[in-house]
Structure formats: C-alpha cells, structure tokens
C-alpha cells in the first residue's frame, strides 16, 4: 500500500514538473554570435551602431532576436539594456546606442535561444569619444523672479534666525536683569533716579539691548555666510557664465578700457645669461643653449638643460654649475627632457619620451623614477609642463595630445582633462604648455593655442578661464602667495599679470624679455627664463599691485 502511494506521489510529481516545463524548449542546434565592434572613427559621433552577426554551420541566420546590453559599474556591475533587434538576411543585427559617458564601454550581445537554436552570447569593447548627457538642463524662464527669490528666501531665513536669537538672548538677559534689579538696592550703589524706574522698564531696556545683541549675533552667525553664499552662487549662475564672465571683463572689452593696462612698476634685479659665445660665435662649453625649465630648490636656481641632458645650478656670480649630467642607477637620462618642477628639496623631471618622471634631490643625485601608468587607450605623454602639488600629485601637460593628466605620487593615473584632440571648447585644450599649482592645490594651465590660462580645481573641475583677449602665446604660468597669476607671453615679449579673480592687472615689459618662456615665483622674486636672455629676476617696486 505504502509502495503504491509512493509511486502515485512520484508519478504526480513528474507530471507536475513536466507540466511546469516550458512549452517550447530551447533547441540544441549550435549557433555563433560574432561581435562586430564599431570602428574607431564610428565612435566619434553621438550615436554608435552596435552590431553582431548570427551564423550557424557557416551560414548567416536571419530573423532571430538579439538583445544588446552595456555593462555599467555604478553600485556594482550590471547590464543596462540598450535594445533588441532581429537579424537580417546576412545574420547581422544592429542597434543604435547614444553613449552617456566617454571612455571604455563593454557591450554584451545575447541571443536567448529559440525552438531550433541554442542560446549564444558575445561581448566587445569600444571607446566612446563623444557622450551626450542623459539629462538636458531645462531652459528656465522667469529669470527676474528666479534671481530675486534666493534673496527673498534668505531674508526670510534671516528674520527667523533674528527672531529666535532675540527670544533666546532676550530671555537670558531679561532674567538676569530682573534678578539684578531686585538685588540692586542691597548690592549695587544704583543712581538715585533708578529707584523711580519700575522693574519692568529696566527689563524693557535690557530687552532692547538683548534685541540689538540678538540681531548682531544672527547677522554675524548666519547672515554673513548666507549673503556670501548667495552672492557667490548667484555670481556663478550657470556654468557657461562662469567661463565667459569670470575674467572681470568681457572678452574684447579692454580695447576701450581706461584701466591700468600699461607696464607694471617692476625692477629687473638680476640677469644671468644661460649661453655665452666664444670668438667664433659658438656657444662656450657649459652654456645652456636651450634652457628648458627652471626650478628652485634649497634656495638655489636650477635650470634644465634639455640638449645637454643635465641640470645646472646658478651660482651667485652667475656661473652655471652642472649638478646632474650623468645617468641614474637605472640608466635614466635627462636628455631631451623638456619639463621640470620642484617640490621641497626635490626636482621632478619628465623624460623625453614621457615614460618616466625622474626625481632628483637637491645635490643632483637621481633618487629614482616614477613610471606613469596610463589606462589602455591613452597615448604616451609628450610632456610640455609639469607641476607637482604639495600632496605629491603630478599634473602633466601633453601638448601633442592636447590634454592634461593627473598622476598620483606613485605615477598611477587619476584623471585626464581634454579630449585628446585640439579643441577650442572649455573642456579641451589646444597645445597646453606651462602648468602651476597654487597653495589650495588649484591647477593653472597655459592653453597656448587658445590664448588663455585655465584654472581647475584639484579634482579637475574648470573654475575660470583667464586672460581672454590679453594673451598672444601664453607659455609659462605661475602663481604667487597672494594668488596673482603671472603668464609669460612669448610672442608678446612680456609677462602678463592677473589678479586672483582673473582680472587683468598689467604687464611686465623689459628689453631683456625677448622670448620669455618659463615663469616661477620664489618669495618676492619673479623668475623668468627667457630662451634668448637667460634667467631674469624681477621684483615689484612701489605702486605694483
């Protein structure tokens, strides 16, 4: 009996399972799904065609549905469905995808099987060059109301804080004054007239004093930050305004501008030629025909001699003394190096091929090399400038590839600014050259081709575009302790100075400035490395900004 029951239950289970099984099981005929990644040129558009081909037994299979996904990695890896389509007579199936971010994309194409064919899957990568934001900023109206609203709301908040401050301070002072008023005859020698003042009037006076204090406290504690915030953000407006107006003057406005545009009052206090010639007109041994860069460590000026592959220090009498001219223990050479930066006692020199950053100590000894590690798809660096932040992070400008790259202290890639091609847009560069980092870690890039200097936050966010209309060929850039920005304009034969807000302050001109290339600041001294005149040191005289 038990056996029979068990048999019945088993049979029922088998029947249930069979009933629950899909009516159309997947077929087992093998089919291949071959990825057809987009060509490099095809990824430079807003839309990219994702394709794959279905084949079986060497022949194309049409009329089957394939689904395409993009792998996303936000909050863990998952598949984002792009779309699905049927294969045509050639077995090819394609969908159109509009990338919403640039860079590497992994595409998964999946055929889920049919009554005849087994499932198949393939994946491929492509590098999106252009991305369109998934969200477009709405175009707002009511500009006057929207402009005034934050101030109105801020005022309301201020009133609330004032009321709360008043209630608190008035209570505290009122209670204390009430106690004092009652104690006054016994403990305080009060003026005679005070005896006729009722207690509530004393309290009332204290209340008024309390009100004044409360308002003052509310204004200081809340009002000023709020006003600052409101003004700051209102000034910012939308991002396009930032770029166009932060200069203090609109581009071209200075043509009719009566502000100080003339030479700044400075004095050339030192001039050290980096090249001397013998009687035959040939550079003497020890000369630096092409001074590539300048750094100051341990209070001494160091000049990078690109052609000689060495670093020279400038003695007080102007003599150029080599401190590094050989190879490091790992065979590192400085020959052809074009960019150098200093941090503390160390100099960071980018090798000619951009494959390493050589670290040289104050005595000229090569301490080691940092090998930049770039993600796949990024071209090798052709460095035109380097700036090292206090945290040891290295910014490199790559003039050939029109980009600026940030590496951490170990040379690991952190971010890139610029699309890799010359660009006149705010997001890109046209031949970036000199770099500087200010005390806050902000980066200044001399965008030579676009004739401006761009300021970025330490995270690479564009903050300001400086010098529009004022610069001809900006090369070097440096920032002093007060945030003033100095830009060497090689073709303009001058150093142009901008205020911390990007406003034009004036220019430094001198007959010795023939091809000013590099600018550096040390204390109150402005160092200019001029390809023709050598190292020049300027100091501000009275009346300078």
């Amino acid at each position: 009996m038990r056996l029979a029951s068990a048999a019945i239950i088993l049979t029922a289970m088998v029947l249930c399972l069979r009933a629950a099984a899909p009516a159309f099981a997947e077929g087992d005929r093998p089919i291949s799904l071959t990825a057809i990644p987009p060509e490099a040129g095809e990824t430079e558009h807003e839309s990219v065609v994702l394709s794959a081909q279905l084949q079986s037994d060497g022949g194309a299979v049409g009329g089957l549905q394939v689904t395409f996904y993009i792998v996303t990695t936000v909050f863990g890896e998952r598949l984002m469905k792009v779309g699905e389509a049927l294969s045509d007579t050639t077995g090819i199936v394609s969908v159109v995808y509009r990338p919403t971010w640039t860079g590497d994309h992994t595409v998964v194409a999946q055929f889920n099987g049919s009554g005849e064919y087994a499932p198949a899957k393939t994946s491929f990568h492509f590098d999106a060059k252009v991305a369109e934001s998934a969200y477009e900023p709405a175009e707002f109206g009511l500009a006057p109301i929207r402009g005034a609203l934050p101030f109105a709301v801020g005022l309301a908040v201020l009133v609330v804080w004032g009321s709360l401050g008043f209630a608190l301070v008035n209570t505290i002072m009122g209670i204390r004054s009430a106690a004092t008023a009652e104690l006054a005859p016994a403990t305080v020698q009060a003026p005679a007239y005070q005896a006729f003042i009722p207690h509530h009037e004393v309290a009332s006076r204290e209340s008024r004093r309390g009100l004044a204090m409360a308002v003052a406290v509310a204004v200081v504690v809340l009002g000023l930050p709020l006003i600052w915030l409101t003004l700051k953000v209102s000034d910012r407006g939308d991002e396009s305004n930032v770029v166009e107006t932060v200069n203090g003057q609109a581009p071209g406005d200075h043509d009719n501008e009566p502000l100080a545009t003339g030479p700044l009052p400075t004095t050339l206090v030192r001039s050290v030629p980096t090249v001397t010639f013998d009687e035959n007109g040939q550079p003497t041994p020890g000369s630096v025909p092409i001074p590539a860069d300048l750094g100051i460590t341990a209070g001494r000026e160091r000049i990078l001699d690109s052609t000689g592959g060495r670093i020279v220090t400038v003695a007080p009498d102007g003599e150029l003394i080599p401190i590094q001219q050989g190879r490091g223990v790992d065979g590192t050479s400085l020959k052809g190096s074009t960019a150098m930066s200093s941090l503390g006692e160390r100099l960071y020199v980018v090798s000619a091929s951009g494959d390493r950053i050589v670290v040289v100590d104050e005595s000229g000894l090569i301490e080691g090399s940092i090998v930049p590690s770039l993600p796949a798809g990024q071209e090798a660096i052709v460095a035109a400038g380097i700036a090292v932040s206090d945290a040891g992070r290295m910014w490199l400008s790559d003039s050939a590839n029109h980009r600026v790259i940030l590496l951490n202290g170990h040379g690991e890639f952190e971010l890139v600014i610029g699309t890799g091609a010359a660009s006149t847009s705010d997001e890109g560069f046209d031949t970036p050259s000199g770099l500087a980092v200010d005390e806050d870690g902000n980066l200044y890039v001399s965008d030579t081709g676009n004739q401006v200097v761009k300021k970025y936050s330490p995270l690479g966010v564009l903050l300001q575009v400086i010098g529009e209309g004022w610069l001809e060929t900006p090369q070097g850039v440096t920032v002093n302790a007060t945030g003033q920005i100095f830009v060497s304009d090689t073709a303009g034969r001058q150093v142009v100075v901008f205020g911390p807000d990007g406003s034009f302050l004036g220019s430094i001109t001198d007959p010795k400035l023939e091809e000013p290339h590099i600018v550096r600041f040390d204390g109150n001294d402005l160092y200019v490395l001029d390809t023709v005149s050598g190292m020049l040191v300027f100091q501000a005289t009275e009346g300078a900004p």
Partner: protein
Amino acid sequence: MDRPLEVGTQDIRAAAVAPILQPGPMFWPLALFLSLVVLAGAVAMFQQLMFGLGVTGLNNEVSWGFYITDMVFFIGLSYGGAVTSAMLRLTNAPWRAPLVRLAEATALVTLLIGSLFPIIDLGRPDRMMNLLLHGQVGSPVLWDVVAVNTYMVATVIFLFLPLIPDMAFCRDHLGPAAGRLRKLLFDRLSLGWRGTPGEKNILERNMTLVAIVIIPLAVSVHSVLAWLFGMTVRPGWNSTIYAPYFVVGALFSGVAAVIIIVAAFRKAYHLEAFITEQHFKYLANMLLALGMGYGYFLFAEVLTEGYKMEGMSMGEGSGPLLEELMLGRYAPLFWGFVAGGLAIPLALVSLPPTRNVSGIVAASCLIVVAMWLKRFLIVVPSMATPMMPIGWGAYWPSRVEVAITLAAVAAVPLLLMLFFRIFPILSIYEMEEIAEHEESEQEPAPEAAGVAAW
C-alpha cells in the same frame, strides 16, 4: 470630563523629577537593550563607511531607499511634536501642560536622528561640506539643509525656554540627590531664575514668540522636503500638492508618535494622575482630523494621476507606476497602508468601544508603522519606474540598511529616557501656572462678593 490638573503641587513636582531621582527597575535593562541595537547600527554604519554604499541595496535604478525613507519619516515625527505643542500653546489649551515637555523632547530627538540620514545616504559624509562650498541657491537641497538646521535651533530653544524655571526648581530642591554634574547643569541653565513676575513676563512673551515662529518654520521644513521630490521629474513625484501632502502626513505621524511616547512614559513613570484618558482623547481628535485630511490628499493624488494614466515617457510614467502600486508588486504595501494606516486606526479612534487609551495607542502604533511604509512607497516605486530602457528597477534593503534603521528607531526611546534622567519629564512651571490660573478663575472676586452681601 476628567479634571487632569486637580492634583497637589507637590505631586506634580514629585512626579516630574521622579525619573531623575529614581529611574525605575526596567530603566537600565531597557537602556542596555536599546544601546545594543544602536551599537549594531553603529557597526553597520562603520561597515558602510569602510566599503561604501555598495553594502546597501541601492543600485543604478533605485538610488534612494531606506535612508531617504527614514529621513522623511523621522523629520515628520519631529514635526508633530513641535507643531502640536506650539499650536496648543498659542491656543492656550490648558490640557496641554503635562504633554508639552514630552512632545517637544520627542520633536528634538526625532529631528536629530532624521537629520543624520541624508548624511548617511551620501555614503561620503565628508562631502556634506560641498553643499556649502558649491551650493546652488536655486536647489531645494540647499534650502532643505538651511530649513532643517533652522528648525533644529528653533526646537532646541522651544524646548529650553520652559525648562528654565524647571531647572531652577531642580537647582533649589533636589540638593545632593541630583548629583554634581546635574546640579552644575541646573545651576548654569536656570540662568538665575527666581520666579519673579518680571521673569515670568519675559519668559511667557518669548515662549509665545518662538511658538509663533516654529509653526511656519516646521511647515517650511516639510514643504522643502516635499519639494525635493516634487521638483524632480519623476513619475509619482510630479505633483503640485506634495508640500501640503507632506505637511499633513508629517503632522499625522507626528501626533501618533507623541501619543505612543506619552503613553509609554505615562505607564513607566506612573503619570496617570496627570496624563489622563481625556488627554489621549484630545490627541485622538487631532489624529482623526489629520487622518481624514491625509486620506483626502491621497485620494486626490491617486484620482488625478489615475484618471490620466500617462504612459511611459520622460517623467510621465505615472500610469504604470499606479498599476504597480495598486495591482502590482507594491500592492500589498499600498493596500496595507490604506487599511493599517488610515481605515483601521481612524475606526479605532472614532468608535466608542475602542476610543480609550489602549485603542488610541494601538491606532497610533499602526499609523506610525504605516506612515513609514507610505514614505517607502513614495520613495522607492518612483525610483524603480524606468526612465531609460533598462526595465523596472528593484530594491531590497541590505542588512546594513535594516540595522541602521532599527538603530534609529531604538535611539528615539533611548535618547528620551536619557533626556528625562536629566530634565523634568513634566513641565512643572506650566502645570503650576495653569493650575493657579484656573484656581483664580474659580474663586469669586472679593469686590463682587461684597457688593452682593451689601
């Protein structure tokens, strides 16, 4: 009608300071248990800080989950306490006196907890400063932070002002039993209060001022919170009534929370002589009015959206969303809210057989749980509605989120228990003032009596 204040002054004072002097046998075991729950939440928080938001159930599609639900929920609870107290003070309702301290403390504690959740939800708390450094004055997020902080300061002042005379009482009467630290606190915070008419005048005036300020402030806090949703182009959030909808919802859940807290402390510290059934009935009336108001808003919202049943396109997927809510995967939660948060509780507080302390507290518990559920239903299904061709999003909270949420829930009674170990649980000053006022009104005026005799 009960006469809740027909008790001796000594009784009021003794009952108010009893938790300070003698916390009761269950205090420490309960505090330990709640502390362990909070500690578990702290460990979960640490885990999240170490490994990032990946330890949560948040994902590409549903990036707001338990944390944002908790934020709206707890700030809503605080709203009920503060506004109830302020409204009762402004309308000079004499029955408010034994409730206001509990209501105001609940407001502060829930606000403190609720305001932590946006920071927890950030995943990177250090980025909170970016709101100030890179804030946009056109964004409701910035104003939400301003509003919540302003409201928090107002709540602290609102709680502090009536505490001044009570702390003076503790300073003068508790003696060494208060302990050195508490005595120092009473001494400093009582500001030298001696109970003179001048002091009372100033205090009353400023308490009224803060009560006036705190009501629009609380309305603004929850309105801005509602606009965080209402100004986002998403199915379900595209609504013009979100601000008042949120305000009424916050009041509804807040009053329910006050009822639960009041009932718990009444039971634990034997305050039945001061907080009578009549108090609960008054609060139940508020609950009833607010519940019907919230039901009306819900109906208006669902009817308007359901009538149109907009299809799936950018920001207009309310049709599919409503289907999911009312018939789909969220239907049990939605109808659970309608039944457990509106129909049953409103019946409990309306029908005479259940219109008592037990029935009203049971209704409040249902409302609080259901209102959390409602906030979940506001946040998650809208996020899960696809805005891109990636199918419906799914969200299931991780253990980390559950632990942090439970810790927040446990922190409310824990902080209140600790608070009332330091400060009087009843507002002695207000109860005595109202009692004196009522007594003076009941006594016949001497001149009138003389005239009648003559």
